[in-house]
């Protein structure tokens, strides 16, 4: 049965959704601005017979996740930007070992220690690997609230279906904002499909080994090609995105997560002023909805990209759109959150531009 409507902050939504998605193991290390999530799970998991461990570090916690995944459990960890940097080694190993897990990142300002204000400058870190080797991390970027709860379920399912780490990318603002949420039906972990690769003692079967070390180059090539085929399949089947008022739009605003919500309000303002603006919001950042965006960027439409960083996703927009439309960019780094009015100003300047293909406004 779906839950009743609850007013909850984003971090707690992730925690509650994880429990309902059948996750019974969480390993993490405190870091602002996502401490409410481990704090929530520290009492909630024991309530359902699950395990919560505050590890001695992010490195330890991602490796505990590796162990629990190898042992067959639905498992997750979470952190914020500098802590995710430390988890990248484990994520790369798990990609190579084909072990599933969910890693939530509530992004903050960087680089380095940066600050604890909401930011979205980890797009490259999430979508371009972060760790070593030829691998991809499916990355979900919900816009908060109800979608945050639903994407936690999707994240666990993707992880198990494709045997891969999955990143849930939020930001400090999303973690703090409270909205009413209705949780989907809880899943009983015992009802999840059996996994035929896990380690549970080799009684009655041949021993299994899980590893990423493949010394023989042709064999490692083979392994990489197998992983790539899997990534190709994910790219084909798992692309997610959302659009708002795009049908008649003369300008397409591309933004994800919190930025997309600020942009949506700006789009409403523009519409009220008589400009046909709409939103294209990628929900999977990898795989990026390249084809879909490319098809929309036609008929003299302009493409305006807004990010809470100095321009990371915009590279995927350029890769998708190419020369088909002029692309404009507005980015704010460092944990400064622009208001919808700031985005409206940007969109006005993009609308006023002569629209020469390829022109970019840097702000």
């Amino acid at each position, binding site marked *: 049965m779906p839950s009743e409507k609850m007013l909850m902050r984003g971090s707690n939504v992730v925690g509650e959704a994880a429990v309902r998605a059948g996750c019974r193991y969480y390993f993490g290390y*405190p870091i602002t601005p996502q401490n409410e999530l481990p704090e929530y799970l*520290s009492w909630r998991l024991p309530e359902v017979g699950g395990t919560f461990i505050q590890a*001695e*570090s992010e490195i330890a916690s991602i490796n505990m996740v590796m162990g629990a995944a190898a042992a067959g459990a639905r498992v997750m960890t979470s952190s914020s930007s500098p802590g995710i940097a430390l988890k990248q080694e484990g994520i790369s190993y798990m990609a190579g070992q084909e072990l599933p897990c969910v890693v939530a990142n509530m992004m903050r300002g960087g680089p380095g*220690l940066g600050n604890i204000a909401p930011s979205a400058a980890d797009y490259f870190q999430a979508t371009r690997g972060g760790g070593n080797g030829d691998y991809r991390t499916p990355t979900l970027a919900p816009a908060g609230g109800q979608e945050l709860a639903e994407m936690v379920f999707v994240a666990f399912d993707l992880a198990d279906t494709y045997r891969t780490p999955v990143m849930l990318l939020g930001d400090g603002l999303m973690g703090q904002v409270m909205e009413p949420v209705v949780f989907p039906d809880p899943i009983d972990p015992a009802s999840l499909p059996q996994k035929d690769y896990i380690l549970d003692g080799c009684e009655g079967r041949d021993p299994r080994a899980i590893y990423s070390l493949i010394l023989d180059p042709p064999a490692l090539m083979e392994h990489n090609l197998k992983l790539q085929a899997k990534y190709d399949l994910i790219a084909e089947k798992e692309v997610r995105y959302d659009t708002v008022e795009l049908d008649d739009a003369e300008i397409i605003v591309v933004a994800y997560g919190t930025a997309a919500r600020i942009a949506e309000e700006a789009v409403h303002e523009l519409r009220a002023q008589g400009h046909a603006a709409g939103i294209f919001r990628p929900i999977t950042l990898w795989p990026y909805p390249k084809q879909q965006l490319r098809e929309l960027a036609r008929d003299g439409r302009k493409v305006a990209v807004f990010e809470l960083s100095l321009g990371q996703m915009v590279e995927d927009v350029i890769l998708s759109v190419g020369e088909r439309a002029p692309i404009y960019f507005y980015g704010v780094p460092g944990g400064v959150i622009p208001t919808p009015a700031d985005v409206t100003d940007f969109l006005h300047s993009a609308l006023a531009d002569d629209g020469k293909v390829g022109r970019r406004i840097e702000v």
Partner: protein
Amino acid sequence: MSAEVAYQKVFGYPESLKPAQTHYCPGCGHSIAHRLVAECLDELGMREKTIGVPPVGCAVLAYNYFNFDMVEAPHGRALAVATGIKRVHPDKLVLTYQGDGDLAAIGTAETIHAANRGEKITTIFINNAIYGMTGGQMAPTTTLGQVATTAPGGREPERHGRPIDISRMLAVSDGTVYIERCSLTSVKNIRKAKKAIMKAFRAQLDGLGFTLVELLSPCPTNWKMTPKAAWEWIDTEMVKTYPLGVIKDNTGYEDKK
């Protein structure tokens, strides 16, 4: 008495502290510890020959308060960074200033190995049994039964593991020469702490090896106590897990009475 000497400055900022207002909460031990470190450096005349590494923790902004060279390290890595500094500048006094999470959770490997290499570095270890900066989560040093936001029912050995006594663990290594645990809970104890810091610096300057002074330090904010109650909690409860005194002393120094 002439006018010039009628007023004599008897108390002020040590030179090794900037005249800045700190961001620490009322009753926090960090400000006292800062002052002790600064007074010792002043007395040794070492301010301009000191390089410090602050932690990631409530004292992350220590470079705004200490009036000597400092470089930020990632959370837990202070002693690795300090090792690099000391190897470049063996003639300088190098210190790290670290909380329990920084030193004894995420930084445990760096801590043990710097100590075991016998790096001629002094660590000021602020043990407040909690994660201050991030808002009261369990620390490796949180005592049994103590409540933390990630141990809401109090720390239990089965579920959360036992408090770690890193100072005693480090004492086992031949690389360490001097380790003492003091507390910041009374004028008497604070004086003792200063003496210990002084001795640790001296041993470093004499090239004897790794030195560490652990300071039991109140965090009234996250312990949810008044400053006075926090002092009392250290004196009556915390010392049961972390008894005060010299843990190891191979300096061979004669203590002045």
